[in-house]
C-alpha cells in the first residue's frame, strides 16, 4: 500500500485517536497536579502512534493487553474516556470499578484485557489468550504491548518461546521508548535493534518508526495478516520516545536537552496532522474542528467521571472469587 492510497477516513480516524490520547493525557497531567488523581500515573506523551497504528490494524473482536503506561492502549482500542477518567479518579464507574487505578485498566467487552503493569508479565498471558483462540478455531488474535524494559525479563523469554513453539496468533508489540525509567536501553542490551531478539525464538520480526502512525499501521497490518493467517506470532518493534519522565514525579532530567529536542521534533502528532492537511484529507480548519470536538469529548468525559461517586466501601470485599 502506498501512502497516497491510504484511505482518507482511516487517516482521519488515526489523527482523531492520537489527538484524543494526547489531549486526554494532558488533561490527566493537569488534573493530577490539581489533586484529582490518587496514586501515580505513567503518561505516554509522544508514543501515541504505536497504540493507534496497531489497533487500527485489528478487528473489534481481537484483544489487546495494555502496559503500566496504558491509557493510550485502552483509548485506542475504544475504551470510553469517561470510564478511564473515572478509574483514574477512583470512582465507582471506572472501567475497573475503582479497584484497578491507572495501572490496572481493562474493558473486556472491548477486547482490552485487564493490564498487569509488572513489566513482562503479560507476555505469556497473551500467549494463553492466543492459545484459546487457536484451540477453539476462532479467527481472532491478541496484541500484547510491552516496553523496551521488558526485553530482559524472564516472562518475555518464556512467553515468546511458547508462542512461537505452538504457532499462536499473537502480535507482540515492543513499544521501545528507549528508557526503562532512567536507564537507556543501549546500556542494558547489547543486541540492537530489539527485534533481533525474535530470531532466537524463530519468530518473524520488524522494526518500524514508532513515531510515524502510518508506518506503524502499515507494518501492523502486514504483521496481523501473517498472524491471522496462521504463521505464528510476530514481533513488531516500534521505536518511539517518552517525551516526559517515567511517572509524575520524574522530570526526566537524566536526558540531554539535545536528545529530547531531537525527539520532540519527531513528535508523531504534528507529523500526522501536517500530513493530513498536506494530502488534502482535511483542511486546517477541519483539523481545528476535529481538535475542538476531541476537547469537548474530553471535557464532557471529565464532568461525567467526576459525577460518579467513590466506590461503595462494601465493594472492597467483592470480586475476590468468582
Amino acid at each position: 500500500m502506498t501512502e497516497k492510497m491510504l484511505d482518507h477516513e482511516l487517516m482521519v480516524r488515526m489523527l482523531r485517536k492520537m489527538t484524543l490520547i494526547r489531549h486526554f493525557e494532558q488533561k490527566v497531567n493537569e488534573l493530577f497536579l490539581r489533586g484529582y488523581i490518587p496514586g501515580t500515573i505513567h503518561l505516554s506523551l509522544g508514543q501515541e502512534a504505536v497504540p493507534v497504528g496497531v489497533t487500527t490494524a485489528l478487528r473489534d473482536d481481537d484483544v489487546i493487553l495494555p502496559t503500566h503506561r496504558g491509557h493510550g492502549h485502552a483509548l485506542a482500542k475504544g475504551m470510553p474516556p469517561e470510564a478511564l477518567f473515572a478509574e483514574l479518579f477512583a470512582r465507582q464507574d471506572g472501567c475497573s470499578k475503582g479497584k484497578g487505578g491507572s495501572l490496572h485498566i481493562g474493558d473486556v467487552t472491548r477486547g482490552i484485557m485487564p493490564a498487569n503493569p509488572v513489566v513482562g508479565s503479560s507476555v505469556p498471558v497473551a500467549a494463553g489468550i492466543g492459545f484459546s483462540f487457536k484451540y477453539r478455531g476462532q479467527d481472532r488474535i491478541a496484541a500484547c504491548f510491552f516496553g523496551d524494559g521488558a526485553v530482559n525479563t524472564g516472562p518475555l523469554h518464556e512467553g515468546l518461546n511458547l508462542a512461537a513453539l505452538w504457532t499462536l496468533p499473537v502480535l507482540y508489540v515492543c513499544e521501545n521508548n528507549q528508557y526503562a525509567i532512567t536507564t537507556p536501553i543501549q546500556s542494558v542490551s547489547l543486541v540492537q535493534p530489539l527485534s533481533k531478539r525474535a530470531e532466537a525464538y524463530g519468530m518473524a520480526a520488524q522494526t518500524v518508526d514508532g513515531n510515524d502512525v502510518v508506518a506503524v499501521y502499515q507494518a501492523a497490518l502486514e504483521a496481523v495478516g501473517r498472524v491471522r493467517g496462521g504463521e505464528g506470532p510476530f514481533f513488531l518493534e516500534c521505536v518511539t520516545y517518552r517525551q516526559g519522565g517515567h511517572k509524575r514525579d520524574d522530570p526526566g532530567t537524566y536526558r540531554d536537552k539535545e536528545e529530547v529536542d531531537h525527539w520532540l521534533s519527531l513528535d508523531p502528532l504534528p507529523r500526522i496532522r501536517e500530513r493530513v492537511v498536506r494530502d488534502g484529507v482535511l483542511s486546517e480548519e477541519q483539523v481545528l474542528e476535529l481538535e475542538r470536538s476531541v476537547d469537548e469529548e474530553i471535557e464532557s468525559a471529565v464532568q461525567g467521571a467526576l459525577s460518579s461517586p467513590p466506590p461503595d466501601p462494601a465493594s472492597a470485599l467483592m470480586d475476590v472469587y468468582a
Partner: protein
Amino acid sequence: MRELTIIEAMREALREEMHDNPDIFVMGEDSRIGGSFLLTLGLFDEFGPKRVLDTPISETGFIGLAIGAAMSGLRPVVDLQYGDFAFCAMEQLAHNACKLRYMSGGQVKVPAVLHFPTGASGRGGTHAQSMERYFSHFPGLKVGVPATPYDAKGMFKAAIRDDNFCIITSHKHLYGSKGRKFLVSEGVSLTVPDEDYVVPFGSAEVKRQGEDVTVVATLIMLHRALDVAQKLEGEGISVEVVDPRSLVPLDRDTILESVIKTGRLVIVEEDTITYGWGAEIAATVAQQALGYLDAPVLRVATPDVPMPAAPNLEKSLVPDQERIKQAIYQVLGR
C-alpha cells in the same frame, strides 16, 4: 467401588472431566508420558496432542499461558513436577492467577487448576517444601490438600469445575505412583465410588471420631495422626482427627465444633512452624473457642530450617508418630 491410589483417583477425575468438557486441556513437563507422578499417564493416547501438551521447562511461561487461556474461556490443568518449582512462576501466580479478577472489578474469571506434589521425601531443600502454605496467603486462590483417594478424586473434580484458580496438592509419599509403596494409615479406605461426585473446597472432614483431644492434620501428617489415634485407643485415650481437606477456603466450623467437644487441640503440619497454617487454626480457636479449652493449643511441625537431604536428618525434623503422641500426652496432662 474399587480401590485406587491417589494418583489413579486424580487421573480418573481428570479423564472423566476431559471427556465431559472439551474446554479442558492439560499441560506440563513430560505430560505426554504421564508427568513426574503419572497424573497424565495414558491421556495423550486418549486425547491427543491438542489437549495433552508437553511443555518446555518454563513454569512462568506455561502457567502464564494457562492464566491467559483460562481468562478467555478454557479450563487449563497444569501439572508441575514438584511443587517447589511453582516459585519459578511466582509473579504469575501471585498477581495474574488470583488478582486479575479483583483488579479488573470482576471482569474476568481465571478457572484453572495447578496440580503439584508437595512435602519432604529425601530430596533436599529445593524438592521438599510444603508449598501449600505459601499459596494459602493469596486471596483469590483456592488450595486443596486431599490425603485419600476418595478426597483426591472428588476435590480434583471440584477444582476443575470451579471458576477460580485452584491449587491441588498431595504429599509425594501418598500418591502411590510408579508402583511405589505408598504410605497410608490403617483403617483408611482406598475405595472410590464409580459414580460421579465432588468433594467441595471448604469442607473439612472428621476422619476419626473421638472425645478427649482434637488433632487437626493434613496430608501425610493426617495418616500419622490416625495411626497414633488408633494406638492410643489401647491406652484409653480417644482422639478425634480432623482433616481440613482444603486450606483455602478453610472450614473453621468443623474444627471449632470438634475443639468445643474435646476441649483440647493439637495441630500437626509438616511445614516449618513459623507463620504456618497451624497458627491460623490456633488463632481461630483462641478467638472463638478459648473458653472451651482445657489446655493450651499445641503445634507439632518442622523446625525453621531448610529440609536436609540425608534421610536421618529429614526424619529428625519432620513430625513423626512419636512427636504427635507426646503432644497429645502433653495437652492431656499426662
